[in-house]
C-alpha cells in the first residue's frame, strides 16, 4: 500500500481516541477498504499512485471520519454508565452513612475500588474505568497529605534549627513514598491522557472536592480525631457532591459528542466544587465563587494541555500498518 494511504489512515487513527481494540478493528476495516478500492482502480488502468489519491479523495476528510467513528463508539451502554457512576456512589454512601471513618469498611471500599481499577486496567481499559482510577489515586494523596509533617519537621530543623529531626528511616520511607506516589500519579495520568484527555478530566474531577474536604478535616484537627460532631459535619454535603458527580459521570458516558461531554462534566464539576467550598468555608462571596468555578474549569483542562505535550496513542501505534499488512494481506499480492 502506498505511503499516501498509510499516512492518511494514520491521520484518522491519530484522531480516533477510542480503546486500542476498537481502533485496531476500525483500522483493519479501513485498510481492507483501501486495498480493494486501489486494486479495483488499478484493474481499470489507473496507476497505483493515482488510484490511491482518488481513494483518499473519495473517502473524505480524515478528521471528520475520525469524529464520526468517535461518535459511533463514544456512547457507552447503560451497564458502562452505571459502572462509571458506581465509585462515586460507593464513596457517597460512605459519607451518607457516616462510615468513612470506619476502620474496616472504609479501607475495604477503597481496596475494592483499587482492585476493580487494576482489573479494568489489565482487561483493555474499558470506558467505565476512568472514574475508578480517580478514586484509586485518592488514598495516595491522602497518605501523602497526612504524612506531610515529616518533611515539614525536617525542613524546619535543617533550615531554622527548630523542632526535632525525624528518624532517618522514617524520613527515607516518607520521601520514597512521595517519589513512588508522584510517579504512579504522573504515569497513570499520562497513560490516560494518551488515550483521550477528556477521560483524564473525568478521572480527575473528584480529587479537588475530596481535597477540599480533607483540608478542612485536617484544619479542624485530624482525620483520625474521634470528635464525631466535627468529623461528620460535612458528610451530608460530601454525599450530595459525590452523588452529583456520579450522575454527571453517567450523563458523560451516555453522551456521544466530545464537546457536549466536556461541557456536562465542566458544569457539574464546577457547580459541585463551588457548593462544597461554600459549605466548607461559609459565605465566600461572589468573586470567590467565580474564581473557584474558573479554577475548576482550568483544572479540568489540564489533561488537554498535557495531551498537547505528550501526544495521543500508544507508542506501538506508529507501526500499526505493519501489523495490518500481516493480518490483512493485500489482494494484489
Amino acid at each position, binding site marked *: 500500500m502506498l505511503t499516501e494511504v498509510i499516512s492518511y489512515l494514520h491521520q484518522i487513527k491519530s484522531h480516533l481516541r477510542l480503546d486500542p481494540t476498537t481502533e485496531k*478493528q*476500525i483500522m*483493519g*476495516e*479501513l485498510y*481492507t*477498504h483501501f*486495498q*480493494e*478500492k486501489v486494486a479495483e482502480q488499478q484493474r481499470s488502468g489507473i496507476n497505483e499512485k493515482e488510484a490511491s489519491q482518488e481513494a483518499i479523495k*473519495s*473517502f*473524505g476528510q480524515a478528521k*471528520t*471520519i475520525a469524529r*464520526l*467513528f468517535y*461518535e*459511533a*463508539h463514544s*456512547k457507552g451502554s447503560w451497564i458502562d454508565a452505571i459502572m462509571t457512576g458506581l465509585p462515586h456512589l460507593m464513596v457517597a454512601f460512605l459519607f451518607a452513612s457516616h462510615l468513612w471513618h470506619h476502620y474496616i469498611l472504609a479501607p475495604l471500599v477503597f481496596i475494592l475500588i483499587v482492585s476493580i481499577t487494576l482489573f479494568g486496567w489489565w482487561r483493555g481499559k474499558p470506558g467505565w474505568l476512568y472514574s475508578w482510577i480517580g478514586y484509586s489515586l485518592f488514598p495516595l494523596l491522602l497518605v501523602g497529605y497526612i504524612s506531610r509533617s515529616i518533611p515539614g519537621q525536617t525542613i524546619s530543623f535543617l533550615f531554622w534549627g527548630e523542632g526535632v529531626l525525624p528518624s532517618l528511616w522514617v524520613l527515607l520511607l516518607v520521601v520514597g513514598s512521595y517519589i513512588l506516589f508522584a510517579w504512579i500519579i504522573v504515569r497513570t495520568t499520562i497513560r490516560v491522557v494518551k488515550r483521550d484527555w477528556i477521560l483524564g478530566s473525568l478521572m480527575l474531577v473528584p480529587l479537588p472536592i475530596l481535597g477540599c474536604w480533607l483540608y478542612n478535616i485536617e484544619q479542624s484537627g485530624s482525620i483520625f480525631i474521634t470528635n464525631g460532631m466535627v468529623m461528620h459535619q460535612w458528610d451530608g454535603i460530601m454525599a450530595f457532591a459525590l452523588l452529583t458527580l456520579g450522575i454527571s459521570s453517567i450523563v458523560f458516558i451516555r453522551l456521544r459528542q466530545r464537546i457536549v461531554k466536556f461541557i456536562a462534566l465542566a458544569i457539574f464539576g464546577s457547580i459541585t466544587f463551588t457548593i462544597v467550598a461554600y459549605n466548607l468555608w461559609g459565605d465566600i462571596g461572589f468573586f470567590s465563587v467565580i474564581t473557584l468555578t474558573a479554577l475548576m474549569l482550568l483544572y479540568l483542562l489540564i489533561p488537554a494541555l498535557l495531551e498537547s505535550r505528550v501526544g495521543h496513542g500508544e507508542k506501538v501505534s506508529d507501526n500499526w500498518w505493519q501489523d495490518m499488512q500481516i*493480518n*490483512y*494481506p*493485500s*489482494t494484489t499480492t
Partner: protein
Amino acid sequence: MENMQAGYLPDLLRGNTDILLLSLIDEMGSTYGYQMIKEIEKRSRGFLQCKEGTIYPALRKLENDGLTKGEWRELPNGQRRRYYQVTTSGQTMLAKKLAIWQDFTTAVNLVFKPVNT
C-alpha cells in the same frame, strides 16, 4: 442549482444513511462496507454519492445499537473482511422506518401534486 444540490442532497442522505444501509444489508443477507458503497452507487445510478468514509462509522453505529452484527471472515486468498448481518431488532427497526418513509414520501408527493377530490 448546483449549490443547492451540494447542500440539500447530502443533508437528505445523512438523515437516511441508517435506513439505506439496514435495507441493503437485510436484502443482501450478509455484506461488507465496500460492497455496500458500490451497491448504493449502482442502484441509484450514481445519484447517491456519499463520502465513502462516512459509511463505516454509520455501520459501526448500527452495530453498537444492536441493529446489525459484524464479524470478520477470512477469504480463500487470506484477505479478511468485516461482514454485516441485520439482527432481529434491526429488522423490526427497518420495518418501522420503511413504513414511516413510505408515509412520508406519499405525504410529500400529495403536497407537491395534490389529488383533486
